[in-house]
């Protein structure tokens, strides 16, 4: 896993090596094992490397035989061995064993059509000197990031936005609409980001830059061609896909470990990895002092069964607050939960134990309808079909069992779901969550409120939906919305890629093998959500793989302490300072009087609901984000400049 950056000029006026080195320095955490650059008259490329495959030969930028095609690449193409054979048969000559070189020759052979052949998680930039063009691409689900900005016809791109700002050619400024999206959906919706004029290449897209213009195109569409009945070979097919999905993700020249949450998905991944891995498996878990968040009992059960070397990152009082500024720096966005912080600490622990690749279970809940949101959608529809029923709404009391039971009963709990919207709204499934999150906006400063007066993030989302969306079942519509609003831009990004790569650890996602996604999308929704049993088909398959206690336990969402992380009961020092009137006035996003009220409630221990917890994390993180990017970045928050060990001149190693 790696990081890359580059600049493509409309006019061939050169890209300074020092500029590229500053961009590389901003990404050094992603690739501490090596560094390379190419500085040409029109295009400059920088790369920082985490060596995983072909440790000796995979340095970048990497070119083809005559240096006319150059690549910088972050990610893994798991079927690279098969593609390599195909390309050799077509006459290509390889100099390395790396998957990087497969992309170079694959691009020469197939052009953009190569992308549909790749099974993997990737973002890359290819400079084609024959056409003076740059080809950017990103994997189907957005596991690996790619940001860009266009400044006076020059394209500036990088794995993280901070490298764009480090170039000195892109200014860090707030995009209020992007921030407003975070406070609606938990993340800005690609291509928009929280930074003005900085864009994220959408998952499943590529873009070609030439003559000072960038043309993005989609190569992969999410679709849900749901079958009426489960096919008789569904379980063997699932078995094959999970088995090969994990086996492909064990392709590595360094040992692969596993994140073990104690839930079904990570347990499946670790069980299959333990069986197939040539190394004894090392597993890594987070534990919490708070028993409502802690899953250690189940983690130990699985680790025991797998005989893994098990390592634990205990999250103690003070830990989340201590790392939160760094978490926001790496996440590059305001957040509404602190949940990325323990993942940041877990990655640090993982790296300390010499593991730089881990399998992890993200994606399964979206593919197999694991979240309570899907049950909630089904239940809301069930109730609205018979609005007079008194018994149906009582079923809402079975949702979200991890929340305070006092707040999960009665009229008010039921009306929260039933009044949120009507089934003819395309966003029906997500309206309760979007409305809950949007409560953060109550704290907006007057100016921000005025700036956003004409903005409607829900209308924008509705307008972006694909035409086939209406033909999908309500639960598949919900699954799609979950994929595009939460999984890609938040779970895989702020909580995923950015946290693990902060410590040079690469996450691999067996459930996000596109073949498995397509299999799950074809299943009848009844195979996935059966009554109140989520991930039904996966549980059936897991009968012989995972301990019964883990297989049969209800889904426990991963959460971390929010307000209690920052108030004990007084606010921790930096939070007190960030939330004082002067700091709030400086960033201009939140109303100081409103925030003072929230601080009073937090200090008194009265703010216990989801709304105020989200609001507090949102305000603290937004203040940190603003300070670190809009203020500190301008003053240059960079580590030492790396000394490149690969320097290409005109595409040939110097």
């Amino acid at each position: 896993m790696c990081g890359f950056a580059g600049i493509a000029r409309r006019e061939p006026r050169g890209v300074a090596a020092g500029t590229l080195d500053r961009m590389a320095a901003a990404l050094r955490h992603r690739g501490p094992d090596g560094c390379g650059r190419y500085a040409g008259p029109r295009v400059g490329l920088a790369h920082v490397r985490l060596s995983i495959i072909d440790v000796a030969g995979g340095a970048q930028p990497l070119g083809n035989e005559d240096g006319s095609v150059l690549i910088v690449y972050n990610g893994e193409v798991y079927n690279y061995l098969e593609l390599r054979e195909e390309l050799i048969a077509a006459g290509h000559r390889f100099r390395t064993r790396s998957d990087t070189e497969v992309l170079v020759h694959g691009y020469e052979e197939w052009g953009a059509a190569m992308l549909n052949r790749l099974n993997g998680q990737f973002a890359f930039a290819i400079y084609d000197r024959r056409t003076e063009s740059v080809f950017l691409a990103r994997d189907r689900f957005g596991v690996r990031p790619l940001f860009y900005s266009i400044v006076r016809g020059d394209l500036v791109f990088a794995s993280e936005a901070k490298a764009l700002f480090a170039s000195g050619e892109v200014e860090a400024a707030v995009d209020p609409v992007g921030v407003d999206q975070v406070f609606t959906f938990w993340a800005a919706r690609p291509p928009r980001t929280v930074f003005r004029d900085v864009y994220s290449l959408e998952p499943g897209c590529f873009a070609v830059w030439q003559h000072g213009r960038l043309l993005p195109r989609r190569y992969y569409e999410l679709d849900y061609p749901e079958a009426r009945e489960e096919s008789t070979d569904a379980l063997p097919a699932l078995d094959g896909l999970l088995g090969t999905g994990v086996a492909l993700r064990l392709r590595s020249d360094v040992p692969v470990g596993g994140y073990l949450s104690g839930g079904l998905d990570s347990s499946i991944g670790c069980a299959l990895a333990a069986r197939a891995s040539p190394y004894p498996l090392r597993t890594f878990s987070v534990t919490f002092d708070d028993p409502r968040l802690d899953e250690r009992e189940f983690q130990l059960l699985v680790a025991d069964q797998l005989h893994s070397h098990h390592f634990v990152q205990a999250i103690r009082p003070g830990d989340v607050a201590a790392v939160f500024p760094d978490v926001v720096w790496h996440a590059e966005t305001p957040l509404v939960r602190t949940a990325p912080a323990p993942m940041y600490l877990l990655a640090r622990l993982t790296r300390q134990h010499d593991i730089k690749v881990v399998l992890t279970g993200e994606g399964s809940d979206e593919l197999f309808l694991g979240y309570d949101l899907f049950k909630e959608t089904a239940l809301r529809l069930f109730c609205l079909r018979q609005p007079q029923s008194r018994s149906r709404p009582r079923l809402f009391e079975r949702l979200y069992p991890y929340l305070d039971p006092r707040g999960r009963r009665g009229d008010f709990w039921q009306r929260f779901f039933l009044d949120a919207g009507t089934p003819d709204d395309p966003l029906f499934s997500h309206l309760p969550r979007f409305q809950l999150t949007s409560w953060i906006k109550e704290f907006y400063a007057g100016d921000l409120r005025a700036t956003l007066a004409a903005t409607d993030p829900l209308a924008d989302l509705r307008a972006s939906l694909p035409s086939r969306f209406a033909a999908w079942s309500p639960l598949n519509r919900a699954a799609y919305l979950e994929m595009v609003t939460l999984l890609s831009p938040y779970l895989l990004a702020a909580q995923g890629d950015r946290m693990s790569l902060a410590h040079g650890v690469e996450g691999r996602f067996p459930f996000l093998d596109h073949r498995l996604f397509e299999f799950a999308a074809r299943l009848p929704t009844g195979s996935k959500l059966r009554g109140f049993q989520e991930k039904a088909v996966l549980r059936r398959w897991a009968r012989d793989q995972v301990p019964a206690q883990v297989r049969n336990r209800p889904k426990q969402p991963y959460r971390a302490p929010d307000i209690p992380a920052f108030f004990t009961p007084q606010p921790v020092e930096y939070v007190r300072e960030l939330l004082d009137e002067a700091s709030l006035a400086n960033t201009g996003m939140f109303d100081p009087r409103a925030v003072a009220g929230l601080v009073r409630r937090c200090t008194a221990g009265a703010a216990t609901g989801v709304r105020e917890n989200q609001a507090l994390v949102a305000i603290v993180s937004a203040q940190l984000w603003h300070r670190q990017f809009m203020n500190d970045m301008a003053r240059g928050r960079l580590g030492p400049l790396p000394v490149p060990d690969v320097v290409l001149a005109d595409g040939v190693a110097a």
Partner: protein
Amino acid sequence: MDEPTILNRTRAYVLDTFLYMRPGFDLGDRDRLLQKGVIDSMGVMELIGFLRSEFDVAVADEDITEQNLGTLADIARYVVSKRGNGGPTRG
């Protein structure tokens, strides 16, 4: 304690507890607290704690309904009915 007093005290509590971030919020006696986004189901639990400490009214589970607690006016009426002729309801 009469109904207008209960209503005024409850309004002051709701403004201070749930609307501290919107000082200019115009909350009518018959505005629906849930639908206007003033209160959520956890907030209702806080409100119930207030009714107990302020008016000595214990709200039974089956009484946690929009009919009883949906608006400021509903709450005042409910509290009066539970207090009867001014006597406490805690049993």
